[in-house]
């Protein structure tokens, strides 16, 4: 025997945890490309700083736990790359770095590392940054204004159309600009067309399942159309909300983070629906312009409970099904006799 320790089944799927994570990283690359296109080198450097901070703190935590660091586990890279995309391109480096360190150390490793975290690390990191430095996170430079790559940016910053919407106004931007992402906003998630491409890529690759995003986007779209925040805009309201809000990005990347997503498909539907309901109610009654991260953190709490209820329902259905089947076959055999 040359190879030992093999267990049945002996043929295995080619996908590994590495490829699953790598798919998400690949889907994030076009967003960085857009950010580079709009804001130049600073966008890339922010991503690099955040990713490096995440990886370094992950390795440090793993060593503290007394384990060997495992370089093929790239989940900290995913978290680190997601974080700066949600913030302004002018955000100082210390904000991004401390957000990603917080996400890895206090949200991921405190709860037990990969696949065990109770809260989505990226959402928690963003929430931490918003709680600490709301002005830095929410004041945006204009696209193509070329903010300096390494110095602090202080001039030419203003609030985004999302702030307008939050205040009850109508964004003044052109619809085409909104659809193409050429407006003041988070550096990576203004272009809704690129985001849609990412969604289809991830779905096609099987890196995410369809249930949670389907329920989430379905309820969000219906709610935006039926109860628009700005009265008398009709379908335009949906365009404003979808282009300026963080929830499109969140519904694709953060909602489907495997560690916090429920495992049963029925509970995934419920999870997506719950996330949508929380997002909408936070938009109406919240105090921040981007509410998705906070809504997701609240939804994470229900993940295990939803699975538990789903399992209980399934047990009930299974028993009913088996009982009716035996009853039917008994009836049949009685008829024959």
């Amino acid at each position, binding site marked *: 025997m040359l190879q030992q320790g093999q267990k049945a089944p002996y043929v295995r799927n080619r996908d590994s945890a590495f490829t699953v994570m790598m798919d998400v990283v690949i889907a994030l690359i076009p967003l960085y490309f857009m950010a580079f296109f709009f804001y130049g080198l600073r966008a890339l450097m922010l991503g690099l700083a955040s990713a490096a901070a995440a990886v370094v703190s992950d390795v440090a935590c793993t060593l503290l736990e007394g384990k060997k660091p495992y370089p093929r586990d790239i989940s900290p890279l995913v978290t680190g790359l997601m974080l700066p995309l949600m913030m302004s391109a002018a955000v100082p480096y210390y904000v991004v770095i*401390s957000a990603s360190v917080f996400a890895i150390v*206090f949200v991921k490793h405190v709860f037990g590392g990969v696949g065990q975290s109770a809260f989505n690390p990226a959402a928690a990191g963003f929430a931490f940054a918003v709680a*600490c430095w709301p002005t830095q996170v929410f004041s945006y430079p204009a696209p193509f204004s070329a903010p300096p790559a390494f110095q602090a940016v202080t001039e030419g910053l203003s609030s985004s159309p999302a702030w307008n919407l939050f205040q009850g106004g109508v964004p003044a931007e052109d619809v085409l600009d909104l659809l193409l992402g050429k407006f003041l906003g988070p550096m990576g998630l203004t272009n809704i067309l690129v985001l849609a491409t990412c969604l289809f890529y991830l779905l096609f690759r099987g890196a995410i399942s369809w249930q949670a995003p389907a329920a989430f986007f379905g309820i969000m779209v219906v709610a935006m159309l039926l109860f628009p925040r700005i009265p008398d805009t009709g379908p335009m309201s949906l365009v404003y909300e979808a282009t300026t809000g963080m929830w499109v990005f969140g519904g694709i990347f953060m909602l489907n983070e495997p560690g916090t997503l429920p495992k049963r498909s029925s509970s995934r539907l419920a999870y997506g629906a719950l996330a949508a309901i929380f997002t909408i109610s936070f938009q109406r009654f919240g105090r921040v312009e981007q509410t998705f991260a906070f809504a997701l953190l609240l939804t994470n709490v229900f993940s295990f409970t939803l699975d538990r209820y789903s399992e209980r329902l399934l047990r009930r259905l299974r028993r009913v099904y088996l009982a009716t089947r035996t009853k039917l076959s008994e009836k049949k055999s009685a008829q024959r006799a």
Partner: protein
Amino acid sequence: MLPEQNSAKRNLRSGLNLIFAQNPVLVTGFALAPAVVGTFTLKNGTGLSLVFAMVTIPVLFLASLLGMLPEKVPQFVRTMACVGLAALMLIPARLLARGIAPNLFDSLGMYFSSMALNSVWLLRAPLCQEKKPIWALWEGVCHTIGFSVCVLAVSAVRELLAYNTLWGHPLSLPAKFPAIAYAFAGFIAVGTAAAVLRWSIDRAHDVAGLVQRKRKKWRVGR
């Protein structure tokens, strides 16, 4: 009254253990809610410790006195007497708190009053009925010290990081994290403190074991 409940050596030792090795908040997990939510400035921490002392020490003392009553007096009467005393002690506590900082009562909110029914005395009072008043008093004092050590340390660190101040005096620190004043950071801070404490207790045990083994070796060598 049981004799072993009142041996001086045992009581002194268990009381001192309460400060670190059996810390009521960090190891046993008593009175967690105020320790997590209320401790975002050092003043708040001091206020919490004050209320804790004002409530716990007299109530444990009273419980021990009640233990001397004849057995005919039912348990619920004793408990109600303790609760009544605890609630009464809030009034002087508030008066004293005004001396520390004028707005302490408001900034602590309901956690000020909720300290009246903290889980430390709720659990310890029935056991203190078996003890002599002097040992009940000693236990109350030690519980207070243990609680204050934890709460003051956590609240000082949180105030430093969240507002860059200590007891209201501004200090210049490189970074400021306003989010640490929120409740979730309280959970993290108390959890981290508990982890650090347990780790150091483990190390202390290791060191003690090492010393003992060395002593034995010497003895064998002789």
